[in-house]
């Protein structure tokens, strides 16, 4: 009997839940971020970015009140898919901002094709494939991909730093491949040589033999590592007393490594790198954004300055806001008009101007930076220069870029 009663109660709950979903006036916006697992701190900062943007908009867009519904993922594509389905099917959102990591982005690209009336605006995912291979008509990305974040770095280290020969150590998955591709295309064109590529499994703890395997005669080592792997490498490299210079991938020099506890990160001082933001850029828009970010949250509930994630999520929200205002907050046609407007949005974002190409992929600015030590001992990314209007094909013609092929352990080859 108990079972019957409980089942009856449960079915009533189900009915109530589905009934309530229809009676909504507020504009519901789904936000997807990694709030579990290794990328948790990045996901939290992404959510902060959206919250700041919503607050700036007075929690209203085109007269409609907005409600943010946050869904947690753990950076795996499976969890991203579950979170998106919950947002769409249970919470009935028509717009999702997110996800954060690369393989989640690819999963969302495929998922978006099955829900043509939902618009997904990428949060911070940087996989090349998400907008380049079989792009989806309702998946938008207002940030650069992993290869675009490396645009211009190759030329810079060859010409200004004089690194003629480099070796590469990277984690063995698609994001570092993509970053190396962005680096190599520029670096090899101006005459640089890549003499060795070592791919280590994600989560490698002991780099002892990898370090010993580095050639003696290179000018610098390109490091496509992140998080704990990056710290392990630096730690063990300093123990061997090595003196090589480094070039950093985007996540090698982000705040997760620069604010790690311990002395190993000091080896990074002077390391050139590039990415979608520069902590210490002095453009007024960026400074304003840093100020808003710092004022919105107490110091122990945020990073020292907005991360790439906060900035990208912030931009995604603002792009959505601009397009929604054009259509008067009207999504009743399944968002078709909204998407037309969204394709035309040109953002004057804190990290430079952003517009979209035909694949709904951002054409944006890349920042070349150098790790520097602040007077208080903290490390930061000093601004060196901007590379404006980077396209997904990295300045190559679409055909030439296609001929290079997708990034892998060995692609692209280094031909000058």
């Amino acid at each position: 009997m108990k079972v019957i009663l409980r089942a009856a109660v449960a079915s009533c709950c189900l009915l109530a839940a589905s009934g309530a979903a229809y009676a909504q006036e507020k504009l519901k916006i789904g936000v997807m971020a990694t709030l579990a697992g290794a990328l948790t701190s990045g996901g939290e900062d992404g959510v902060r970015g959206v919250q700041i943007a919503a607050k700036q908009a007075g929690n209203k867009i085109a007269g409609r009140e907005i409600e943010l519904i946050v869904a947690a993922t753990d950076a795996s594509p499976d969890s991203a898919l579950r979170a998106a389905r919950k947002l769409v099917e249970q919470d009935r959102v028509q717009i999702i901002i997110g996800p954060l990591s690369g393989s989640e982005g690819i999963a969302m690209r495929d998922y978006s094709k099955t829900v043509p009336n939902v618009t997904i605006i990428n949060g911070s995912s940087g996989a090349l494939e998400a907008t380049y291979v079989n792009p989806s008509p309702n998946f938008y990305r207002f940030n650069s991909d992993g290869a675009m974040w490396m645009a211009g770095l190759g030329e810079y280290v060859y010409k200004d730093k004089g690194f003629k020969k480099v070796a590469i150590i990277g984690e063995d998955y698609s994001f570092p491949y993509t970053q190396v591709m962005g680096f190599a295309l520029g670096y090899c064109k101006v005459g640089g040589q890549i003499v060795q590529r070592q791919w280590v499994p994600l989560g490698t703890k002991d780099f002892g033999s990898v370090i010993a395997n580095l050639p003696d005669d290179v000018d610098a080592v390109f490091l496509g590592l992140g998080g704990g792997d990056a710290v392990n490498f630096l730690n063990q490299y300093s123990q061997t007393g090595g003196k090589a210079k480094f070039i950093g991938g985007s996540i090698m020099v982000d705040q997760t490594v620069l604010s790690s506890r311990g002395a190993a990160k000091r080896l990074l001082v002077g390391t050139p790198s590039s990415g979608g933001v520069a902590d210490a850029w002095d453009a007024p828009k960026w400074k304003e954004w840093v100020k808003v970010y710092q004022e919105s949250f107490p110091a122990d509930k945020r990073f020292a300055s907005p991360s790439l994630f906060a900035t990208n999520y912030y931009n995604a929200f603002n792009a959505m806001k601009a397009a929604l205002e054009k259509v008067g907050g009207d999504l009743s046609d399944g968002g078709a008009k909204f998407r037309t407007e969204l394709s035309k949005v040109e953002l004057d974002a804190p990290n430079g101007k952003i517009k979209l190409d035909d694949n709904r992929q951002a054409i944006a600015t890349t920042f070349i930076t150098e790790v520097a030590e602040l007077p208080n001992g903290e490390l930061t990314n000093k601004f060196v220069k901007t590379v404006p209007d980077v396209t997904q094909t990295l300045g190559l013609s679409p055909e030439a870029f296609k001929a290079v092929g997708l990034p892998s352990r060995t692609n692209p080859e280094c031909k000058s």
Partner: protein
Amino acid sequence: MSSFIARRPIASLLILIVAAIFLWLVFVVWTPGMEAAFGRKRVFLSALFNGITLGALYFLVASGFTLIFGLMRNVNLAHGSLYLLGGYLGWSVGTATGSWTVALIASFAVVALAGILMQVLLFRWMEGQDLRQTLVTIGLSIVLADLLLWGYGGDTFQVETPAWLSGPVQLPFAVAVRSNGEAVMMTYPSLRLAIFCGAVVVGVLMWLALNRTRVGMLVRAGVDDRDMLSATGVRVQLVFVLIFAFGAGLAGLAGVVGGTFQSLQPGEDTKILLSSLVVVIVGGMGSIPGAAIGALIVGLAEQFGSVYMPTYAVMLTFLIMVAVLAVRPQGLAAVRR
């Protein structure tokens, strides 16, 4: 030793030959032909030494695991969490006091205390229920992992290396010969050498304690036949608590060591637990010499793998494990009962 040679002459001969070849490779100056086959001598030697020193770390963790298992039949799947707890504590204490040695001792003490609590509050009430104990350790590891994430956040921590251990030392092996006939000597991180020496000291002390003291005798008796031991009127609970404290303390100590030459972050607990599992499965469950052999094999496999077959280096250790299971399921050093 001599009885082993007598029992297994062929296996002993093979082991001796392999050891001799390794020694020869270490001391000889490599010819170009050998360089073509094995890469540069420096790479080979580094992989060899790194494998041994990594094995030393694994031994520190796995010996506690295997000791607890051998005596109490408790598969402590929270052992990795104790390692991580010890590492974080070591970082906190090290940062507060500025002393690495104090951090090491404090971690050992606090994690040993945690071990005592686990044994006294939980496991002694479910003696003989192997599965239930194991499930409890799984629950504990989940809770502990989230508490540590809560307390320390997702950042990467690295315990400060003491000044007297940082930097490299020169070893008496030539890795190459310059054109003027002068030999280029091998340099090696002193920290790793210290870890190796530390593990050897711990291993020898454990061996002495087990074979030369009264408590050790009780422990050995308990491993062989627990019921008989308690029937003789020994306060077996006290022995259990001592061993659990010591095993947990070793995990905490290893956490500081690992946090110094590697790093600490969420997820490290699972990785170190998996390594310990493979070590004790390969070496033989419940056996200290087995833990030493297993740790050495796993460490060497990982390091040689990372140089000579980087893609499948992680797989190599598991392949070794499967091979051991197929040929000698009780582990290399364990006695069949």
